[in-house]
């Protein structure tokens, strides 16, 4: 039982397991902090069927016996809180929810009024406010008609932990007993704890209602051992586990509201191999970075922004060991992604509408510190693109494609996204929404060449590059110049046409041939009219290159890439947005 690793089984497959793992890690960290002088750490490692909580120093019996009481989470007080609570719990263990809410609303008001940075910094809400607000969504303390005080289930756990302060060592010992090996026997430990409390003369319940807050698949509902009756009810469990879940929530949960609705989404980090200290530092940055947003876009931004926060942390070299560990790996080797629970508001109550898992992008392999910079640029570009797609104004499908690529790793979804993003971009440019930007070829190359190496020969082929450039100069380049100023036609629908034809090799080659022929003819026409040629002709060698690639990789792959690169901006080409910099090209 006194060892350097403890275990938490993944019993429910939801973020309840993660909360428990983080809760145990926090408790063990507090014990180490009381007895270990100098450096110490606690690491959470995903071992498949369970989480292993590894300690820098093995726990000792003496530490457990003498461990000072640790109040790990605060009591959320409101107007209906029993005065005995405020008398019993030290003031630093109580949070006045209403006061914190007031502070949060003032901050939001200040943001709306574009207050100066210093004012905003002063009024910044507590970093845990969103968690408190989420707890409050299931009702805080209240008074019954007769004046009897009722504690909300979260506060009840905090209160029970606090009131068993003299028996902290017993609680700790039973938790260790339960988590000493995988597949711990909850019922047996609960029975042992109950027996021990009876011996000590303590009258206390050993069970607690499973809260939907920590256990999204176990909210109030029907669950009968025999299929002969149905009765709504709550499931109960060992209260110490529920308390640890409440503790763990503060170290991994990021609850947010879905913009424009009363619905909520809670993101909970799923660690693969993370030290608690680093986790907390990255989480703090992530909480600042993720704001309420629409449902799909928030999933995407959550994954992208957590990755950025993680890379920022590595880059700042606050933790040299972490940077060294990162080499040869990606952020997903430290945090796999996030459990996401969608709570649909039904007025007074809410229902769990979705339980899912959003992965962090898996296309990063950090081989050198430069790679971190490179990947951050790619993420920033993707984030800028995603931020400008409005989910409620026709961008829903685009965002769903992108989310399936980002989280599900589906390249097909990415190419569907790029194929649809082209027309979207052209529409936006038509409306002079120049803040909507295309991908850059450089970052597309990084994305594809680092994560999908077999496709590298396609991107390196001069024929492929020239034809992608021709597509670009027939679509977004003249669009940036403006319809009236461009010498060349804007070919609306070219991307969709190529995408449609790319199902079959021969049809794709025919479609591409038609485009090339008309492209060169248009060049000749403009040259005849103005005496100038602003873009290169497509050469027969380019055609030969692409036909060879289609034979080898198929029209779908080559077509997808041509569309992606054709609608991307080449940073080496100057003046996409300025007509003064159009270069004169001679054939």
């Amino acid at each position, binding site marked *: 039982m006194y060892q350097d690793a403890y275990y938490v089984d993944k019993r429910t497959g939801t973020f309840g397991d993660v909360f428990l793992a983080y809760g145990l890690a926090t408790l063990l960290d507090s014990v180490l902090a009381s007895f270990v002088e100098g450096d110490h750490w606690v690491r959470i490692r995903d071992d498949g069927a369970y989480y292993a909580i590894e300690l820098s120093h093995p726990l000792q019996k003496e530490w457990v016996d003498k461990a000072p009481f640790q109040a790990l989470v605060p009591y959320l007080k409101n107007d209906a809180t029993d005065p005995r609570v405020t008398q019993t719990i030290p003031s630093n263990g109580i949070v006045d929810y209403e006061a914190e809410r007031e502070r949060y609303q003032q901050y939001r008001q200040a943001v709306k009024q574009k207050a100066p940075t210093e004012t905003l910094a002063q009024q910044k809400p507590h970093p845990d406010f969103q968690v408190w607000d989420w707890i409050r969504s299931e009702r805080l303390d209240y008074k019954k008609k007769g004046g009897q005080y009722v504690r909300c289930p979260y506060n009840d756990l905090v209160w029970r932990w606090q009131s068993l302060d003299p028996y902290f060592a017993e609680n700790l010992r039973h938790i260790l007993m339960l988590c000493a090996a995988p597949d711990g026997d909850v019922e047996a430990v609960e029975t042992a704890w109950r027996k021990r409390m009876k011996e000590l003369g303590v009258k206390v319940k050993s069970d607690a209602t499973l809260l939907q807050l920590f256990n999204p698949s176990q909210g109030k509902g029907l669950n009968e051992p025999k299929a002969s009756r149905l009765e709504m009810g709550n499931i109960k469990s060992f209260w110490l586990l529920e308390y640890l879940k409440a503790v763990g929530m503060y170290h991994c949960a990021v609850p947010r509201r879905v913009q424009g609705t009363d619905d909520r989404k809670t993101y909970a980090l799923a660690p693969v191999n993370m030290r608690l200290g680093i986790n907390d530092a990255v989480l703090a940055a992530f909480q600042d970075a993720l704001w309420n947003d629409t449902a799909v876009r928030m999933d995407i931004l959550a994954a992208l922004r957590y990755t950025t926060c993680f890379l920022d942390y590595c880059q700042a070299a606050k933790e040299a060991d972490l940077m060294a560990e990162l080499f040869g790996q990606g952020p997903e080797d430290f945090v796999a992604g996030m459990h*996401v629970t969608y709570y649909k508001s039904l007025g007074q109550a809410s229902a769990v509408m979705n339980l899912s898992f959003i992965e962090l992008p898996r296309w990063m392999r950090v081989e050198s510190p430069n790679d971190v910079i490179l990947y951050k640029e790619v993420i920033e570009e993707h984030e800028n693109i995603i931020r400008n797609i409005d989910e409620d104004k026709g961008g829903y499908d685009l965002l769903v494609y992108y989310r399936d690529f980002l989280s599900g790793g589906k390249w097909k979804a990415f190419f569907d996204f790029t194929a649809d993003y082209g027309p979207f971009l052209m529409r936006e440019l038509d409306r002079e929404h120049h803040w909507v930007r295309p991908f850059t070829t450089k970052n597309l190359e990084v994305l594809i060449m680092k994560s999908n190496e077999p496709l590298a020969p396609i991107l390196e082929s001069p024929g492929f590059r020239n034809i992608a450039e021709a597509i670009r100069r027939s679509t977004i380049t003249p669009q940036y110049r403006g319809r009236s100023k461009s010498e060349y036609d804007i070919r609306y629908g070219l991307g969709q046409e190529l995408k449609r034809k790319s199902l079959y090799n021969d049809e794709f080659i025919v479609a591409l041939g038609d485009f090339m022929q008309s492209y060169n003819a248009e060049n000749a026409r403009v040259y005849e009219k103005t005496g100038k040629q602003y873009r290169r002709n497509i050469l027969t060698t380019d055609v030969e290159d692409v036909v060879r690639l289609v034979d080898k990789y198929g029209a779908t792959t080559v077509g997808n890439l041509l569309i992606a690169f054709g609608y991307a901006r080449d940073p080496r080409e100057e003046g996409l947005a300025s007509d003064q910099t159009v270069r004169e090209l001679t054939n």
Partner: protein
Amino acid sequence: MWLIAEYQSVTLFSFRSGLATTSAAKTLFLPTPFAIRTALLDAAIRTNGRAAGQAAFEWIKGLSIAICPPERVVVTNLFAKILKPTRKEEAESAMDRTIAFREYAQLVGSMALAFSPAEERADELRHLLSQVNYFGKRGSLFQLLKSPIEVEELPKAFVCMDGTYLQGIQVNGEEKRHFVLGLIQMMDDWGKTLTFSKVNIYTDEKIVLGKDRVRKGILLPYRLVRSSKGFSHYEQLPMPG
């Protein structure tokens, strides 16, 4: 001796974990030993009558069960409109409409079940296995692919479903084993104290959790390959040894 029956899932499989409530029903990937035994009992009653079912109850309870899981499982996350008992005191209808989370699993590849019947029960079990066309929730249909076969040794690809569990104060089932990567699913099974009368839904006798209905942590050889908002894709891990 083991009798092996190979089934193909022919619809999406959905079977709420015993840990979950109807408000957000995460599905198990595979039928539980409780569901498998109950399907056999159901087949016995439907084909041979109630008395035969009652007689079969004891030997079905004594069967060891192992499973060879399908190669892949893809779980779809959805929500459905459901009815739940109303909480209103003066309601016009006994049920209210609401929504709830539901998961449906596509089992890619066949699923084989292995049983250890006494020799004299093998033919009867073979007959019952051919009568089973769903496990767990009605609508999670399975098709028996061929007549069950007998083998002496249980092939390595099978996962024994007799995990460690507590019944009263007694620890039953397999000893703790070396853990491999995989994922745990909490599955129910018939407890030793379960009787035909308790399992009969037309009697008032209760099934007591932890005694009549025991919960086992079964380690399945799967790992999460990819997932997004709408799906999770699991792939089988190679079996150890």
